[in-house]
């Protein structure tokens, strides 16, 4: 048994001028797993993927794909990868069929076989009716599926998916998830980036959380969620002046520090959803009025708050903890 991983990267660094988009990230993806890279826009996810896919040079650090050095041997690396970008990278001037045929030909598939593979993939991705339509008439979901199909022509052992479902409607998103699971069942290894915790949760065996070019956490989805509690109680107080008193109530009842944001809002991490009742009762006893209450699964925002101490959206808005 060899122990060469599908992806092995150490201390990856990529700078654009003074800005370090990726700042010393280590990555270890085992064969046959779905590895999720989770982070907000601008965290450096796409940059990292592009470095591993030979689309951007590696400024510092090293990366290996199935033991092949990415920097020294880009041609071999490219033969091991299928890359599906954030924006569909298919040719607008060609039909779906022509696109797949072209990408097959460019990778040395004989013409007849390229045609068969194209037909086969279009069938598998539910695009056979649109096979001869120009891409300009395709919906976002269809483009994404065609893009993924184009990555699979030579059945590469490793697939990179850069935000595969961003901008898709929920139904199409579910289909995409099924497709990704099928890939792994077929023996592929998948490295995907996403902004959605639930996507990483649904798909990934392991997740790395990336923020401002750093890896801030890594673990299984359950491990990550456990770090922020299993659910979150979101409260809005009738009077923002009560916030300090309400925070005391929460601290006394749960031993947990609530996250307070402007205009009377308060978030409390709960290890079990039914503990929300204790907080609500406690607040009523203290005479604190509430205008809205909800209990939700933790969102990426909350994971971020806990892991990094700041919001996903604006880095300069440091939230008091």
């Amino acid at each position, binding site marked *: *048994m*060899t122990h*060469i*991983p*599908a992806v092995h990267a150490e201390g990856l660094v990529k700078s654009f001028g003074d800005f370090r988009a990726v700042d010393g990230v280590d990555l270890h993806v*085992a*064969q*046959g*797993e779905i590895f999720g890279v989770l982070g907000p826009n601008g965290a450096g996810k796409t940059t990292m993927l592009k470095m591993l*896919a*030979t*689309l*951007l*040079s590696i400024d510092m650090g090293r990366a290996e794909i*199935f*033991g*092949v050095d990415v920097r020294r*041997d880009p*041609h*071999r690396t*490219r*033969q*091991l*990868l299928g*890359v599906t*970008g954030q*924006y*569909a*990278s*298919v*040719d*607008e*001037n*060609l039909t779906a069929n*022509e696109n797949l045929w*072209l*990408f097959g*030909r*460019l*990778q*040395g598939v004989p013409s007849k076989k390229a045609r068969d593979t194209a037909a086969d993939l279009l069938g598998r991705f539910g695009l056979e009716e649109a096979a001869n339509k*120009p891409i300009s008439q395709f919906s976002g979901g269809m483009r994404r599926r065609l893009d993924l199909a*184009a990555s699979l022509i030579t059945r590469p*052992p490793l697939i990179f998916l850069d935000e595969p479902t961003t901008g898709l409607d929920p139904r199409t998103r579910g289909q995409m998830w099924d497709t990704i699971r099928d890939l*792994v*069942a*077929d*023996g592929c290894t998948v490295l995907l980036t996403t902004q959605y915790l639930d996507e990483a*949760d*649904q798909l*990934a*065996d*392991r997740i790395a959380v990336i923020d401002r070019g750093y890896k801030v956490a890594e673990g*299984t*989805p*359950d491990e990550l*969620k456990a770090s922020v509690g*299993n659910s979150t109680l979101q409260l809005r107080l009738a009077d923002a002046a009560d916030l300090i008193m309400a925070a005391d109530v929460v601290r006394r009842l749960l031993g947990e520090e609530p996250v307070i944001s402007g205009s009377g809002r308060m978030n409390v991490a709960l290890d079990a959803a039914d503990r929300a009742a204790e907080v609500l009762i406690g607040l009523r006893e203290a005479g604190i009025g509430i205008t809205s209450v909800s209990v939700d699964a933790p969102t990426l925002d909350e994971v971020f708050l806990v892991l990094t101490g700041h919001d996903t959206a604006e880095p300069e808005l440091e939230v008091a903890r």
Partner: protein
Amino acid sequence: MTMQLTPPAIAVAPPRRLSAGDIAARTTPRNSLAETLSQTMAMAWRATKKMRRNPEQFFDVTIQPLLFTAMFAYLLGGGMSGSVEAYLPLVIPGILAQTALTACMATGVQLREDMEKGVFDRFKSLPMARIAPLAGPMIADLLRYAIASALTFAAGFAMGYRPEGGVLGVLAAIVLTVIAGWSLAWAFTWVGTLARSAQSVQGISMMIMFPLTFMSNALVPVDTLPGWLAAFVKVNPVSYIVTATRDLANLGQITAHVGWALLACAAVILIFAPLSVLGYRRHL
């Protein structure tokens, strides 16, 4: 949580799983020449599809030769050679070279436009030869140069041009123009890989093209020019091509000028093809 995720360490081995060493061993270190050629032809096929779906790409090689031939012949014919008919043998080969240059300028602009598109990310991520995305469209462009030269001659015939070189001479002149256009297109392809936007490619290419075409012997005999300008015109590669084309079409002879023109073309390719590939790689 209903979903139970398996940790990777004890992940069930998926079917058809090979060891990483086996997977890496199936790769090849580089593209063979045959692979490079087949990739280039696939990219040429893509370019012809694109042309057919955007027929406006043919404007510069259809309208310009017709317009320039008529315009320059009637405008300058009387003044230059006494009559339009007498001027045609001088100006037709000149316009031929001019049109070929304009056509290859579009090669650089279109490459730049193309490179902005998402599909180029895929081309870059594929294990294909780096010259294929550049050479492919240029092979498709041979068609454009052929159309441009054929139309220029056709316009000349309609206006009374009867080249002494006969059918073979004219065909040889067309072939030389196509070769010249193809070679010079590498220079504009290089500009295409360097410039920041399609507009800047257009601008830089114009700056190169106008002096090259007009400060040549394309429209006027060199002996009418002041000494300093004649000196430039004589070393301008476009002049070599124009003279060689005239020799082929008007005399039906393969003269030394033809040899020099072909040599100039080869030099342009040898310089700019490697530079273009370097420029393209730099985008990675």
